[in-house]
């Protein structure tokens, strides 16, 4: 009952869609703004709890970032500690390491973004189109890896890759007469392994957003196109993907903001902290962790965070600017 109700509701609305879209974009004058503010008072009130919460949780501690420019003293407190300029940032740019950690962090993140989008969107489309009763089972099982901690995942990877007892080396390779591979001392395999593990762990979670978005689409568009003789593939290409575009762009933009951050556990625990692999597994976060583990230097740790956020901020703002030029509706703001 409910379904057909909402469907007819949709079709009713659809007719006026394009015409109204045009009229919505009327320039406003200040009088109108005032009227709008008045009209939207309840809406502002709705936003208030969230605004207050974010203020308390995220904005109030923000001045603490000055720690990155100080020599910290618990006696004098964050405010009373003396300034040291950019000294705490120096270690992030030291010698050849700086290039490697930046290259790895950026490279992996770009790979992750691409692979994640492709995989999550594909899975979401498949799930949305499947008619079998099993789809619920599929959907919940692929979410399971998300619940495993990185430490457990690192054990699982070890179970497959270790030279003494690993499945690959001891059970699978002999079947094909292949030589053993000492995975934890061969850097060349790790870019693939890390991308695989990251995708495997995240795809179930990532596809939920796309799935729920697709399921919000008006089914009648699909039915109409099916009557017109469109194939499944054409429907996906001509209807689903274009409609998904804003969501995809938004998620990519948000990932760009985190592009200088890396999943610490993935790069530290999953390779079993193997030093030989560091050329391909060292990222900004693991470098900072290893460097500060013994010293526990708060200003230096803060400096790393400021650096990561700042670069991410600049990148995402630029990307957003470009998006706004090309496709204003998809821009973040």
């Amino acid at each position, binding site marked *: 009952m409910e379904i057909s109700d909402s469907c007819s509701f949709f079709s009713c609305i659809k007719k006026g869609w394009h015409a109204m879209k045009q009229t919505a974009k009327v320039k406003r004058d200040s009088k109108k703004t005032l009227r709008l503010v008045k009209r939207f008072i309840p809406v502002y009130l709705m936003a208030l709890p969230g605004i207050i919460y974010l203020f308390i949780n*995220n904005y109030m501690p*923000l001045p603490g970032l000055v720690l990155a420019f100080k020599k910290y003293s618990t006696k004098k407190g964050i405010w009373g500690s003396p300034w040291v300029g950019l000294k705490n940032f120096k270690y992030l740019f030291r010698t050849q390491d700086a290039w490697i950690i930046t290259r790895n962090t950026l490279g992996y993140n770009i790979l992750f973004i691409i692979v994640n989008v492709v995989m999550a969107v594909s899975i979401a489309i498949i799930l949305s189109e499947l008619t079998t009763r099993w789809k619920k089972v599929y959907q919940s099982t692929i979410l399971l890896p998300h619940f495993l901690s990185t430490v457990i995942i690192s054990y699982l990877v070890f179970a497959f890759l270790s030279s003494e007892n690993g499945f690959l080396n001891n059970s699978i390779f002999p079947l094909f007469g292949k030589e053993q591979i000492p995975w934890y001392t061969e850097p060349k395999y790790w870019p693939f392994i890390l991308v695989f593990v990251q995708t495997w762990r995240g795809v179930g979670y990532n596809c939920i957003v796309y799935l729920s978005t697709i399921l919000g689409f008006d089914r009648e568009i699909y039915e109409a196109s099916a009557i017109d003789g469109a194939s499944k593939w054409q429907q996906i290409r001509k209807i689903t993907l274009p409609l998904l575009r804003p969501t995809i762009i938004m998620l990519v933009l948000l990932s760009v903001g*985190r592009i200088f951050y890396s999943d610490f556990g993935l790069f530290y625990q999953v390779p079993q902290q193997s030093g030989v692999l560091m050329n391909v597994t060292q990222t900004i976060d693991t470098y900072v962790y290893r460097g500060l583990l013994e010293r526990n230097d708060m200003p230096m740790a803060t400096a790393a965070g400021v650096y990561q956020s700042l670069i991410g901020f600049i990148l995402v703002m630029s990307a957003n600017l470009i998006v706004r030029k090309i496709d204003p509706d998809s821009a973040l703001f």
Partner: protein
Amino acid sequence: MKSKDEKRFQFMGNVVMIIMTILAVAPLLLVIISSFTDNNTLIRNGYSYFPEKFSLDAYHYIFVENPQVLKAYLVSFRLTAVGTVLSLSVTTLLAYAISKKELPARGVLTFYVFFTMLFNGGLVPTYINYVNIFHIKDTFWGLLLPGLVTNGFNILLMKSYFTSSIPDEIVEAAYIDGASETQTFLKVVVPLARPIIATIGLFAGIAYWNDWNNGYVYLNRRQDLYSIQNLLNRIVQNIQYLLQSGDSNAAALLANLPTVSVRMAMAIAGVLPVLVIYPFVQNNFVKGITLGGVKG
């Protein structure tokens, strides 16, 4: 009648999903089996689907030697329930507001939310703020508040859904029909947004269930408030510390502890309730998602 094209798609789709399912389930099965494997067998032979020797030591250690475990489950359930409801309300309301295209200052508000995704004051300033000004240390609030809207991500996600999947025209029509903003929101928007509300609710629930860090940071004197993930993490970290410590004083205590299988059992103990509850959540609460998927 289904076309050939449709049939082929269904077949391929099922194949892909079956592969994905196996990829997800097989490692989990390994975790389950390992948690029931004798510890020495694990160290000697590595992880195996067909272990030489089974043992219940790991579960005995968790559930019998740590009497706190059941209490911790209760804390986790309470935290997840309260946290999800609160988080979902705050997120939905704010997301709806910034999704309104005509709302004055919408851009500023969106940026206000977005900014929190990139910058935060760091652990210590956040801690100082919460402890000195809001006094949440050693209270239930300490578990609840710091993760309420983890960052702007969920808000922006929901906002994007509102803008892309809920036509302004419907909302506008309701408003013109004389419904107040609040009524429009409750009667028109919320029902239409069920898929995303279910999704964000799920995300928030997962985040609360999995969170162990707030317990570390904000609880010093209240062991009775440890959530299950926090408690399990403490046990695991302690084992880890002992294993890596060269001090034989420390290592002596590990002699009788199933160090490897315990960790596997911990993972299961943490996921199990989710596995049990998730199907019900999916059946009822997430009906929004599945209903939308059924072809009319």
